[in-house]
């Protein structure tokens, strides 16, 4: 090396340094590549962390959803029967049969194609054959549709007439042949995803109770309450009147319509009367008189309605009877029983003006000899004339009662068996009267309550319960 020329030496040094620098630069370049790779991994991992954070942030809501869904699902599946309940369903059908009066003739399990199975839900189909009246069949269908477990009636047929040689009538209605196909599903809880254990599940469930209930309302199996016969006729029976030899005993359609129309008219009148009573246009006495009349007419109608109703056999008339007589009559009775609160009397006694009017009317009735009318007038408001002593209407009430006593006494007197058979008028002494075969002089008591006060040629004056009354010959 010592022999190397300066130039060679310089070149070696520079060359060696260059190689080393190049190696270092290569190393830096390679390292930078590694750094980029690591940076890319970091970016990826950071994205994963961000995604994980996003998922973690969703956990509370997800837990909430899962709890609600899990609880709802547990409730929802209760509408579907399990295998044990399918056996029990046979007993249920038997119970429905007893309740409705249908007569079943067969229950067959239909084969369901495997393709119809929906995940955890397996359909099961039954065909039920029976004989029933239309109303029995309808009630039976309704009971099945309102059964606590979900049962769907997919097909059915109702054909008039029972089975050959079977009964034609049941409870007065025609028997039909009915075939129902019912479908339900069984639920297999296993087979789904494994249930995740949610910490503090019971507490969370309690917190979410309201929301669980609200979401539960999303599934609502339609139910319907069958409204019953309501006087309707069987739509599978020819309702026309039978003619000739087949004519049935009983009233003709025209006669039945006449009975119906009579009751409809009477009901209209009663309804009008009640409306007038409640309108406030009638005076107090009119109200009481009308009320009394209304109740009497209603009672008469109620007494006759059962017998007349039983005489109706023509379907359309029976339906109108139910709709236009029985229904409105019930309503009238309800209206009568349920007087509006504002109509209920706060003051139990008649107002002074009405009392004065009552006194005036009673006086007029008594003086006019209309004693019966006076008594009825008073009796209509008797409870409201019992005004206590301290009340300013007391005097009027006393007057009214006094007129009532007079009217009643006069009526009772009128009803006494007093046969005036002759009189002996003595100008200077006591006159006498031949009464019911006995002679009584003025001042004599005929009975404890009846005194002969004065005897005149054409009439005899009596004192009856303190009231002077005259009986003419």
């Amino acid at each position, binding site marked *: 090396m010592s022999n190397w020329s300066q130039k060679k030496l310089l070149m070696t040094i520079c060359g060696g340094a260059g190689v080393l620098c190049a190696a270092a630069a290569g190393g830096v370049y390679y*390292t930078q590549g590694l750094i980029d790779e690591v940076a890319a991994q970091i970016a990826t991992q950071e994205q994963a962390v961000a995604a994980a954070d996003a998922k973690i942030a969703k956990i509370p809501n997800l837990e909430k959803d899962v709890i609600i869904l899990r609880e709802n699902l547990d409730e929802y599946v209760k509408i579907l029967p399990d295998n044990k309940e399918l056996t029990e369903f046979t007993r249920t059908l038997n119970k429905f049969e007893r309740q409705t009066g249908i007569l079943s003739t067969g229950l067959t399990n239909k084969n369901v194609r495997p393709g119809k199975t929906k995940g955890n839900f397996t359909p099961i189909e039954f065909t039920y054959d029976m004989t029933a009246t239309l109303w029995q069949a309808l009630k039976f269908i309704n009971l099945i549709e309102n059964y606590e477990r979900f049962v769907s*009636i997919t097909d*059915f047929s109702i054909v008039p007439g029972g089975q050959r040689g079977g009964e034609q009538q049941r409870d007065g209605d025609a028997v039909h042949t009915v075939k129902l196909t019912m479908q339900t599903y069984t639920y297999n809880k296993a087979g*789904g995803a494994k249930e995740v254990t949610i910490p503090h599940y019971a507490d969370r469930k309690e917190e979410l109770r309201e929301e669980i209930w609200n979401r539960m309302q*999303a599934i609502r199996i339609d139910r319907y309450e069958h409204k019953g016969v309501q006087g309707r006729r069987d739509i599978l029976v020819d309702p*026309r009147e039978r003619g000739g030899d087949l004519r049935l005993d009983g009233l003709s359609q025209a006669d039945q319509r006449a009975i119906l129309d009579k009751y409809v008219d009477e009901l209209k009148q009663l309804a009008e009367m009640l409306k007038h009573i409640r309108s406030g246009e009638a005076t107090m006495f009119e109200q009481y008189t009308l009320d009394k009349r209304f109740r009497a007419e209603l009672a008469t109608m109620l007494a006759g309605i059962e017998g007349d109703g039983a005489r109706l056999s023509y379907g359309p008339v029976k339906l109108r009877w139910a709709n236009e007589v029985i229904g409105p009559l019930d309503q009238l009775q309800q209206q009568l029983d349920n007087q509006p609160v504002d109509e209920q009397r706060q003051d139990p006694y008649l107002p002074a003006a009405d009392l004065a009017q009552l006194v005036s009317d009673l006086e007029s009735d008594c003086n006019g000899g209309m004693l019966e009318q006076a008594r009825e007038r008073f009796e209509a408001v008797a409870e409201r004339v019992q005004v206590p002593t301290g009340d300013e209407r007391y005097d009027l009430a006393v007057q009214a009662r006094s007129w009532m006593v007079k009217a009643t006494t006069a009526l009772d007197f009128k009803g006494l068996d007093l046969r005036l058979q002759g009189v002996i008028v003595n100008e200077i002494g006591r006159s006498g009267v031949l009464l019911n075969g006995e002679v009584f002089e003025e001042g004599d008591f005929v009975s404890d309550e009846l005194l002969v006060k004065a005897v005149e040629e054409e009439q005899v004056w009596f004192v009856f319960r303190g009231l002077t009354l005259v009986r003419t010959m």
Partner: protein
Amino acid sequence: MIRINLLPADLRRGNRLPPRVLAAAFGAALAVSAAVGWFGLVYFGDLAAAEDQLQSVEAKLSQRQPKVKYHDDLETNRKDYSQRVQTIQEIGNSRRVWSKFLDELIDVVNNNGDTERHLAWLDSVTVKGDPKKGAKVTIPGNVQDADKSRLANFHEDIEAAAFFADVSLKTDPQWTLEYDATRIPPAFLKFPLELQFNPSAAPKK
């Protein structure tokens, strides 16, 4: 005169490293040091820092993994439950309440006892369910008398019934005049009648 150079060989002027060589060697050493230093900084500095950061992020991620798995399990549960709930809802909604339909049909036929508008009766009632097309109801029947307007009235009343809102197709009025001598009046119009209901919300497969 003879001059004798007594200096050691390497200190003799003729054998000494020339300054240019020294300068070059120095410069080369400097450049190599700088290059190696730069490499060292990048390798042991930046790369190590990046790897540390990566480890840190990986640690963060692995720390979150149990919760992520919990989330995923919950999500699986949610989807599973939702699907089952939906199926049950669809099963529930797929049902038609036939007792309600029959009650309404009986009302139409009875027509509140008004026999002037029509007096009808049916020969049979048949319902055939079809989840895809909807249920088909076949109710062949009769109306009293030969007055065709009564048949039209009956069809009008069917169309006015509540259940008809869900009917997609109804047969048009058609009739044949028939007689039954045992009845008063003997004449009646026999008619076919089919109602095609809209499909209910059937369960999805």
